[in-house]
């Protein structure tokens, strides 16, 4: 009795929401079973639950009735019977999941044992994804509760063509292997000739077979086609910038020095070549021109030097331009290929197939 009370305490948390649900139940017997369970009257709940199962119930209410019966058996320490009831429940509602933090360990272990005693394909998930055809795959995840031969197919919906071409239902074998537990497979949505599968809705069907037992689950997905983004052409390379092709040399006294040198050369030449018999020549002419040269040299020394070509920078810029041109040629080539590619976008459909 203590156990029953303990189990009841655990179940309080689980069934608190169920109290609300009891009001929504259509079947009166099932409603009374739920109320009895809520009041921790497990035997009465068991009796009402079993009585409800003998009545005509919809699928969800039948699963609910088995759940009440299973929890009641678990509370009454009839684990085997609880397992049987849970088995019936998951056969009707294979996606039913119990939270181990909120139900009693006895009930959860019974539920777990039940899962491993029936062949189910649960928690079929297909994530949304997008990729270039031929360069990606659709990830498909599901759980098989018993070791079984599992065949995964993608079937075109609404006349979507496949290997047989347009007009006939496409049927793509995704995977066929023996699996148990969590399974991850992927589907590369391509036709045998390598082309992407036509856009449209597809149903991914996972069928598990163990002896005479079979179970299948399905989920609809939608495949849409799109253009692959092309790459923009480069105008610069990241981290590399064009350098100025001229540079202003440092200011020096060189112009004045050169003017001195040239004027001095003229003066020395004049003095050296003067004829002794003719006497010293007039220096007026040299004075005028030499002074002009020296003044010009001095002014040019003070002036900002003229920009001159920076050979290193010119060479660097030429290499950079060539590199950008080469990269753009590669990008153009890649864009040609990208324009021939198809971007496949896989999105889940709201409609999920019922397990069989």
């Amino acid at each position, binding site marked *: 009795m203590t156990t029953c009370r303990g189990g009841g305490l655990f179940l309080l948390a689980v069934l608190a929401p169920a109290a609300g649900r009891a009001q929504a139940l259509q079947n009166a017997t099932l409603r009374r079973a739920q109320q009895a369970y809520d009041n921790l009257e497990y035997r009465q709940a068991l009796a009402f639950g079993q009585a409800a199962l003998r009545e005509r119930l919809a699928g969800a209410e039948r699963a609910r009735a088995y759940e009440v019966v299973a929890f009641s058996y678990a509370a009454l320490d009839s684990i085997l019977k609880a397992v049987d009831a849970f088995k019936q429940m998951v056969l009707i509602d294979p996606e039913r999941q119990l939270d181990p933090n909120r139900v009693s360990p006895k009930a959860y272990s019974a539920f777990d044992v039940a899962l491993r005693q029936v062949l189910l394909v649960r928690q079929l998930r297909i994530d949304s994804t997008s990729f270039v055809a031929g360069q990606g795959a659709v990830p498909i995840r599901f759980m098989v509760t018993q070791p079984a031969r599992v065949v995964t197919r993608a079937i075109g919906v609404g006349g979507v063509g496949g290997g047989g071409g347009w007009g006939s239902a496409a049927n793509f074998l995704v995977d066929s292997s023996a699996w148990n537990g969590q399974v991850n497979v992927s589907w590369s949505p391509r036709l045998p000739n390598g082309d992407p599968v036509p856009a449209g809705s597809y149903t991914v069907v996972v069928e598990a077979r163990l002896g005479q037992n079979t179970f299948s689950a399905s989920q609809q997905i939608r495949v849409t086609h799109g253009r692959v983004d092309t790459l923009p052409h480069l105008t610069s390379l990241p981290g590399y910038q064009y350098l100025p092709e001229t540079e202003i040399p440092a200011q020096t006294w060189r*112009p004045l020095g*050169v*003017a001195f040198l*040239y*004027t001095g*050369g*003229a003066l020395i*030449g*004049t003095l050296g*070549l*003067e*004829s002794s*018999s*003719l*006497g010293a*020549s*007039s*220096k*007026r*002419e*040299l004075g*005028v*021109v*030499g002074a*002009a*040269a020296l003044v*010009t*040299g001095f*002014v*040019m020394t003070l*002036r900002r*030097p*003229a920009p001159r070509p920076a050979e290193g920078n010119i060479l660097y810029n030429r290499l950079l331009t060539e590199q950008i041109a080469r990269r753009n040629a590669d990008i153009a080539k890649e864009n040609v290929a990208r324009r021939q590619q198809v971007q496949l976008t896989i999105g889940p459909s709201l409609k999920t197939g019922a397990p069989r």
Partner: protein
Amino acid sequence: MSRGGWGGGGVVPVAMVLLGLGGWPTGAGAQHLTVAPQAVLVDYREVSSGLRYSGSGFGGVATGHHGKLSAAASVVRLTLDPTDQSTAGAGFKATQLDAWVGYDVASHASVEVGILRRTADPEFAAQSLGALRLGVRSTYDLGPGATVSFRVDYLAAPKFSGGGRAAFSIDLGLGLDVRLAGRLHGVVDYAFERVNRKTNPGGTGEIDAPIQQTLARLGLGIGF
């Protein structure tokens, strides 16, 4: 006394060829072309220190540069008067033609050929001279639009109106071309000419009759 007219030899045809060459860059898309009227200062001495003249004049110069080729031609009209120390009784006028064609052999150096022709008026007031130029020139850019040059020319095959010969004749010069504003250029040039002329009057033996001239040309020109 032999009066070998210098224009009667091969100098004039050569000069015409060189002048033709000198004019070529202007018609062939020269990179730089400058045309400038010039004022001239001159000092002229001949034979002895007592025969000295000083004067001025005017003229014009055209220079061009195309690739490695350069050319220049200058014509000046000079009026020379005896200086205070001169023993000469009267002055004279002279016309001097200079022409060069140069070829750049290095970034700052070029070789050049050309002519020199100076005629005196009256004819016997001073020696008229004709010669070929063979020389080198060094040119350096002082800064934007400013170029200084220094040249040394050997005056080959000189001919004198009064006859004689000159084994050693040289002409050196200092030039400056400055872009003053826009196309306006200042063009100045200094030339020192020394000719070791020797004559043999009456066959009695050679005597020295040197010629020495300094010339300054100052001009404002238009650059193209």
